[in-house]
């Protein structure tokens, strides 16, 4: 194979989300002569960003003073907050926990916000390249990170080169900044290689499934923010919902399931759809239309799971580092702050990552995580214990002398028959979409079918033998896009991977109980094309 073409920058950022773009903007503000590029696997900026999202505006005020005069396209001041405990037929309104009081915050579409941030970065001289996926990390002779290689385009499913084949290039940089979001595929490799998680708890995740609805005129209350927990989750599954009322008669709604669930039969997508049919919500949606839909893993391990965020030649920021604040259900402010902090650190230290981990841990970014570190893990012991513990931890401001442990999500799955099946008090659904395939249509996900499958399963023989017996193939249930299917045809029973449906949520990579699924980037530009998510 011919020598790969190379481009050089001072800094390369992987991922054009709030962390990566804020980092690049801050870097250029402080030191315009530094060359920086941001690569993004989505075909356009924001197309693969999925978040609630209610954001705290203070970091934006610090990054872009005056942004309020030129706000992102969807930006509704937070109004009334509500917090509900749901049972199957009704619900009870509870006092809003302090972390969920949103006065002064804004409801945004994070996708639209990133599409609004990117041109501001470009105006400062940042090169933003959507449609280019980082396939791999490259290393210097001394073992430090040297940059990334961009995936080839035009490779057929069997690995041969199609007519339009274009070899990817290598981008070399003094520093590589990973801003891939939760469970970044390069970050995962680097954490292993540099043992960044040594002495830390395993990282923990949830899956968030979201839809954006257009309602009949006059039904939405712009600014209203509703969170709920309880039904349809059983008391040992961490599940909660959000409803954010936007302008233009639109509402964003979603359901989050902790990926530490233990029942192998649990279906996060079904739980979301069940919740939509709750009597408190169904009348809001009936007669409306889905505009966009999708799913994304959320990083929830917090303080005790935070890896070392620096390594020779590279550093981690935002959700790929794991900075989301679970009780607040927010990560954007943390992403922006960590991005700014990383830029400030690099400028002050001649672009050397060393020392960034200490700087981040000494900052209010990690202080915020430390305060709430015991809240999410306690829900493992059941809903009521979790709530009481949350009240305790909140009252003490996180001053408890202990730190609860996180376990790896994949390890929490019980084997079939090992526990009593939780009673799933589900209803007959009437709201669309009917099934996951009907839902994935609203993600507008697109992958050229003739490309190598980007979900690497290292041993598919397990699927129809050990896994079928032990867990009953949970991949066919946890995937929100019906990517995994066990088919039984003339060729026998086997796993079929419908990779073209993939919405890049990374749940399979996290939850597969044998840890044999490896999510890698497909051809650049592939994947969901979310609108205003």
């Amino acid at each position: 194979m011919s020598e790969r073409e190379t481009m050089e920058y001072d800094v390369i950022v992987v991922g054009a989300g709030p962390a990566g773009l804020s980092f690049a903007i801050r870097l250029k503000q402080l030191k315009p002569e530094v060359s920086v590029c941001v690569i993004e696997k989505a075909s356009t900026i924001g197309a693969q960003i999925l978040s609630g999202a209610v954001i705290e505006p203070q970091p934006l005020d610090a990054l872009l003073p005056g942004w309020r005069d030129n706000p992102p396209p969807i930006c509704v001041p937070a109004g009334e907050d509500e917090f509900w405990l749901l049972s199957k037929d009704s619900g009870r309104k509870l006092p809003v926990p302090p972390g969920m009081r949103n006065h002064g915050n804004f409801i945004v579409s994070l996708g639209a916000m990133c599409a609004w941030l990117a041109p501001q970065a470009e105006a400062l001289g940042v090169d933003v390249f959507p449609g280019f996926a980082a396939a791999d990390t490259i290393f210097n002779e001394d073992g430090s990170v040297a940059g990334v290689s961009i995936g080839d385009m035009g490779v057929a499913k069997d690995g041969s080169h199609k007519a339009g084949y274009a070899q990817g290039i290598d981008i070399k940089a003094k520093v590589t900044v990973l801003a891939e979001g939760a469970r970044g595929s390069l970050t995962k490799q680097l954490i292993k290689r540099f043992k960044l998680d040594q002495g830390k708890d395993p990282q923990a995740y949830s899956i968030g499934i979201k839809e954006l609805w257009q309602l009949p005129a006059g039904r939405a209350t712009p600014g209203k923010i509703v969170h709920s927990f309880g039904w349809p989750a059983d008391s040992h599954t961490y599940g909660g919902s959000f409803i954010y009322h936007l302008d233009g008669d639109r509402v964003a709604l979603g359901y989050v399931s902790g990926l530490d669930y233990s029942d192998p039969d649990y279906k996060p997508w079904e739980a979301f759809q069940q919740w939509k049919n709750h009597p408190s919500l169904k009348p809001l949606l009936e007669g409306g239309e889905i505009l966009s839909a999708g799913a994304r893993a959320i990083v929830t391990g917090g303080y005790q799971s935070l890896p070392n965020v620096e390594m020779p030649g590279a550093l981690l920021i935002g959700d790929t580092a794991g900075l989301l604040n679970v009780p607040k259900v927010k990560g954007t402010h943390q992403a922006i702050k960590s991005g700014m902090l990383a830029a400030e650190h690099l400028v002050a230290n001649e672009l050397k990552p060393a020392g960034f981990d200490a700087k981040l841990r000494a900052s209010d970014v990690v202080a915020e995580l430390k305060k709430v570190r015991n809240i999410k893990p306690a829900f493992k012991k059941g809903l009521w214990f979790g709530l009481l513990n949350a009240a305790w931890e909140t009252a003490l401001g996180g001053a408890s002398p202990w730190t609860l442990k996180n376990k790896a999500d994949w390890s929490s799955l019980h084997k079939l028959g090992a526990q009593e099946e939780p009673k799933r008090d589900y209803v007959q659904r009437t709201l669309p979409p009917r099934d996951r395939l009907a839902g994935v249509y609203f993600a507008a996900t697109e992958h050229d079918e003739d490309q190598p499958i980007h979900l690497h399963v290292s041993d598919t023989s397990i699927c129809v033998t050990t896994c079928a017996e032990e867990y009953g193939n949970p991949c066919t249930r946890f995937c929100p896009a019906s990517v995994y299917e066990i088919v039984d045809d003339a060729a026998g029973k086997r796993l079929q991977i419908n990779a073209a449906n993939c919405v890049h949520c990374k749940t399979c990579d996290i939850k597969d109980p044998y840890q044999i699924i490896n999510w890698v980037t497909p051809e650049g530009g592939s994947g969901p094309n979310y609108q205003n998510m």
Partner: protein
Amino acid sequence: MKILVGYKRVVDYNVRIQVKPDGSGVVTDGVKLSANPFDDIALEEALRLREKGVAEEVVVVGIGPADLTAHLRNGLAMGANRAIHVVTSDAVQPLTAARVFLKLIEKEQPGLFIVGKQAIDDDANQTGQMLAALWDRPQATFAGKVEIADGKATVTREVDAGLETIEVELPAVITTDLRLNEPRFIKLPDIMKAKAKPIDSIDFASLGVEAHDHLKTTHYAPPVKRGKGVMVKDAAELVAALKQKGLL
């Protein structure tokens, strides 16, 4: 020879088109825009002609608002030598586009004007034909194969009956069909090179083209949704159901 390529920006083909609630148009806020796929094919063909030595210069031309430059840069990154941007914030109908292109042709004197057979937004399939008439030059539409030699283009057209091969004298207008070629991927270093390539901006008003709207849109509506299906037990029940609906 110089080749002019009509290069329109449209709502991306992956986007689920949504009609605005008031029926005044389709939603374009926060929607991904990209090159009309048929225009990408036209540009690819022009670049291949240049690579074969048939043409020396490929110029992409676009009509649209100030931010259209980002789209034209993509054309430059694919390989066009330069771009012309006719700036207007108004929507442009096919006849107006053809008149604008004619003005550019008069100025640039190309040997070939190549453009997609239609744009996937309005699906009008008119601009190429109208341009040929205004220019008073031959047209070869729905091209599936193009060969150029001795001042003539031999074009295989995709027509209802199959394939039809015609010969036209240059200069001419060619409109491209789906199977003509597969456009190349844009490479990162070429995006950087494209930043240095020139884009000429021309104000629409300065061209003296009459911007008359010949077509008036009354309203937009999404297609009627398919009703819920009914399961029938057997053929007899099916026949009965069809009879009841008066279909048998």
